[in-house]
């Protein structure tokens, strides 16, 4: 009795495998496309801006108060459908202002004049050359694009584990604790929203660069922010960084941030 039951199960298992093999093989065969005459091609748009290593230089002397930053923040958040959540715990921000002692906690000076102590600084994702968030992500949903050094999010792949948020030394990342759509003031139809459960952050306006436009905050800054290719010795950013004194946030951590601040 025992032996024949075992035999029955063995034969049933092998038959299941055999019968199941056909649809799999059919499926594999079908994914090979039937020959079309010419091969479709995928390429960059001819007007796209390209660089080996995008970087940003923010001239902080051009900004006097919090209000000066508002058009920049508004430009970024509106075209990217960043929701405006009232609950501060769930807030999503790609670019915002912080006082000096929060943006640069290790460079505090208690004897600064009052106005300098709390001087507002624009903070955003630094698109580090050595990003800890990319090291941490278990699915490569956050990744550094080899072609231009931008640290991007693939919202389709993100599993919402928030390891990248723990890894980021700059607090640049936000998580969608709930569906963001009800909180978007005015949807920009040209750019997707995100769904609940994924992490998001500044993307250096990769979608604008691809069609030949500068990032929204750069455009709204009236020249206070310079955006260019750090790998190109003749670029605007290289010229500024080589001549003027700039600081970056927490460089002692070895992240090599790409956002410089002229102070």
């Amino acid at each position, binding site marked *: *009795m025992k032996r024949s039951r075992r035999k029955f199960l063995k034969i049933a298992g092998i038959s299941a495998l055999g019968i199941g093999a056909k649809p799999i093989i059919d499926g594999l065969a*079908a*994914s090979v*496309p039937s020959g*079309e*005459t*010419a*091969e*479709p*091609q*995928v*390429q*960059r*748009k*001819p007007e*796209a801006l390209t660089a080996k290593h995008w970087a940003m230089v923010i001239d902080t002397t051009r900004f006097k108060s919090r209000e000066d930053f508002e058009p920049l923040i508004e430009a970024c958040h509106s075209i990217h459908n960043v929701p405006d959540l009232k609950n501060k715990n769930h807030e999503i921000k790609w670019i915002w202002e912080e006082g000096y002692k929060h943006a640069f906690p290790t460079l505090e000076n208690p004897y600064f004049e009052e106005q300098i102590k709390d001087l507002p600084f624009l903070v955003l994702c630094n698109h580090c050359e050595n990003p800890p968030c990319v090291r941490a992500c278990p699915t490569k949903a956050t*990744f550094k*694009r080899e*072609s*231009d050094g931008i640290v*991007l999010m*693939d*919202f*389709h792949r993100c599993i919402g584990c928030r390891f990248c948020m723990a890894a980021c030394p700059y607090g640049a990342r936000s998580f969608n604790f709930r*569906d963001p759509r009800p909180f978007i003031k005015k*949807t920009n*139809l*040209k750019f*997707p*929203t*995100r*769904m609940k459960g994924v992490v998001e952050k500044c993307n250096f306006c*990769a979608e604008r660069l*691809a*069609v030949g436009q500068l990032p929204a905050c750069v455009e709204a800054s009236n020249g206070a922010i310079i955006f260019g290719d750090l790998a190109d010795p003749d670029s605007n950013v290289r010229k500024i960084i080589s001549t003027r004194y700039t600081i970056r946030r927490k460089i002692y951590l070895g992240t090599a941030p790409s956002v410089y601040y002229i102070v």
Partner: protein
Amino acid sequence: MPKNKTMYNQGIIIAGMAVFIVLATFPFWYNLGKAAPAPERVLTAQAKAAKECILSAELMRTEHMQMLNEWRDMVVRDAARLYVSASGKPFEMSLSNTCLDCHSNKTEFCDRCHNYAAVDPYCWDCHIDNPKEIK
């Protein structure tokens, strides 16, 4: 091993199996003769005028899911946004801005087949659907 192969609880087991078979085949015998017809998709004037899509209509029907998956990897991860089809026609690779630009009647085009096949793609959680889907 018992000499006579008696089946214990015979009544209950056979009755239970009968109930199970009836329940498990419910979708088949309940819908006998009531097969829903294949959905009719409406093309917008713009789509009709364009004549040509990314791939042929048959390929789009079977492959548009895979194609969109490949597109998203190429746009997001490889920074490539321009698709030149086999016949040389250029398209910007964007679900909301290219596909839905021509097929701007989502409820009469996309949703017809999706609802018929009981498929609920979560693409619309993020990519703006136009007009907003009525479930």
